[in-house]
């Protein structure tokens, strides 16, 4: 067993992923307090509040962060918030534009009036600091080239200080941490985060200390958010597969450990 061809393990994992996607079971999804934190805050915002979202990821993290972005935007548009979006990742610009446009169209929202996608600006963390000083200097025009000054969606918004709630969906640096360090900590707005599964353990200290008020972690977090807004999508569909692969991995780990310890005992008995 310890010398098993690794391709057999790939096949087992592949089947455990594929079969639940083809034949879903619909396992229950328990909502965690960290995901509920983001949901509850958005739910508590009055209409036309300014909701700022930064899509700090690229297509490599699409499977985890794309469903999170879709669910958050649907929730924000349903609450009639003014949605201001941007990205700190140049390779994520096209994907972010596609997500915002797709959800806005689905929810019947108007570009410039209900939402705006500012695009990408160079400078990583310096962009956050600039946004805290003057949004119009950082983004003189939106992604489509329209001047940002005078857009109804930005009415009364001069800088990050005028943002009611901000969520960064981050797949690395710059991401949630950068937005906290150079944004929230300096300009004092309420903030939540969304991230890939790999990053989630590193962001829990920020959550516990109240530096961010909620955290959507990985595909699991996206599935919880989809359940909360009652619009089940790709994340919920993937949860059966996620559970099946986890069970398969746990079984493989147990089997390999049993074989390892039994072989070690046999070797000791032989030498003794």
């Amino acid at each position, binding site marked *: 067993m310890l010398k098993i061809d690794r391709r057999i393990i790939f096949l087992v994992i592949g089947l455990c992923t594929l079969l639940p996607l083809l034949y879903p079971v619909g396992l229950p999804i328990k909502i965690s307090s960290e995901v509920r934190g983001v949901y509850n805050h958005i739910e508590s915002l009055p209409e036309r509040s300014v909701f700022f979202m930064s899509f700090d990821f690229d297509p490599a993290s699409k499977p*985890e962060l794309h469903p999170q972005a879709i669910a958050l935007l649907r929730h924000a548009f349903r609450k009639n918030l003014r949605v201001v979006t941007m990205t700190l990742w140049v390779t994520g*610009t096209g994907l972010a534009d596609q997500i915002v446009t797709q959800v806005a169209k689905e929810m019947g929202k108007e570009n410039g009036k209900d939402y705006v996608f500012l695009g990408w600006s160079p400078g990583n963390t310096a962009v956050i600091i600039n946004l805290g000083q003057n949004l119009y200097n950082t983004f003189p025009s939106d992604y489509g080239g329209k001047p940002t000054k005078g857009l109804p969606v930005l009415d009364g918004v001069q800088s990050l200080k005028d943002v009611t709630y901000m969520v960064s969906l981050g797949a690395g640096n710059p991401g949630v941490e950068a937005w906290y360090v*150079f944004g929230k900590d300096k300009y004092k707005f309420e903030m939540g985060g969304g991230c890939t599964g790999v990053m989630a353990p590193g962001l829990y200290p920020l959550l516990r200390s109240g530096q961010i008020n909620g955290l959507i972690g990985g595909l699991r977090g996206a599935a919880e958010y989809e359940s909360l807004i009652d619009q089940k999508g790709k994340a919920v569909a993937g949860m059966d597969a996620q559970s099946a692969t986890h069970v398969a991995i746990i079984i493989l780990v147990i089997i390999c450990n049993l074989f390892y310890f039994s072989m070690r005992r046999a070797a000791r008995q032989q030498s003794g």
Partner: protein
Amino acid sequence: MDATVFGAWVATGLTLCIFTFLYKDNPLFKLAEHLYVGVSVGYTIVKAYDTVIVHLIVKPIFEQGEIALLIPVAIGMLMLTRYVPKAAWLSRYAFAFIVGVGSGLAIPRTISSFILRQIEDTVRPLLSMAGGDGVTFSMNLLNPSSSINVIIILIGVISVLFYFFFSIEHSGPGKIVARTGVIFLMIAFGAAFGYTVMARMSLLIGRLTDLIEFSDASYGRPTLWLLMVTIGVLIVLSRRSQRKPPQES
């Protein structure tokens, strides 16, 4: 061909090419890998040129007369002197500017956000005054701010810090504290690894979801056709490599 359908064929083909690595390293995987790198770099260059050069430099200077922008442009141009050995020393001014500004911005904010706020959170009061109940000690492990969790975090932080304190030998009571630190570290690594496995599985689920979607007739069933082509190519490549005589070392 519709752009969406064409995109589905390209995405399916490249996904399958990358998946062939699970069988073994092969030219199909290399093709997809190099395409990914090339497209990423090309996209970044085009976006950076359009956003930075055109929209943030050329247009404001020539259309709006913002001459002050020439100062950051000049500092940026100094970076390029790295390619001229005799003038390379000029680039140090640009680097000095970037390091100075970057450090000045990052150090106070990082100390405030991570060190001070996290220390504040680590040394929370062990007992709390809740309403008219007087001093209380909560034992709820599920509540992150309960008294028992505050104690666990305090023990964890101190024992891990002690484990990385190498000036005294870890023996006697010190050994127990260091071992406790190792246990906390192992739990943290386990949690991080668990999340990493979950993330990687999510990526696989994402690709398989797309492959299932693209097996639909509305896309022309690229998943099925390209899967057959990929398997065919792998068989041909495998046979060709078997026919090759072993190379002499």
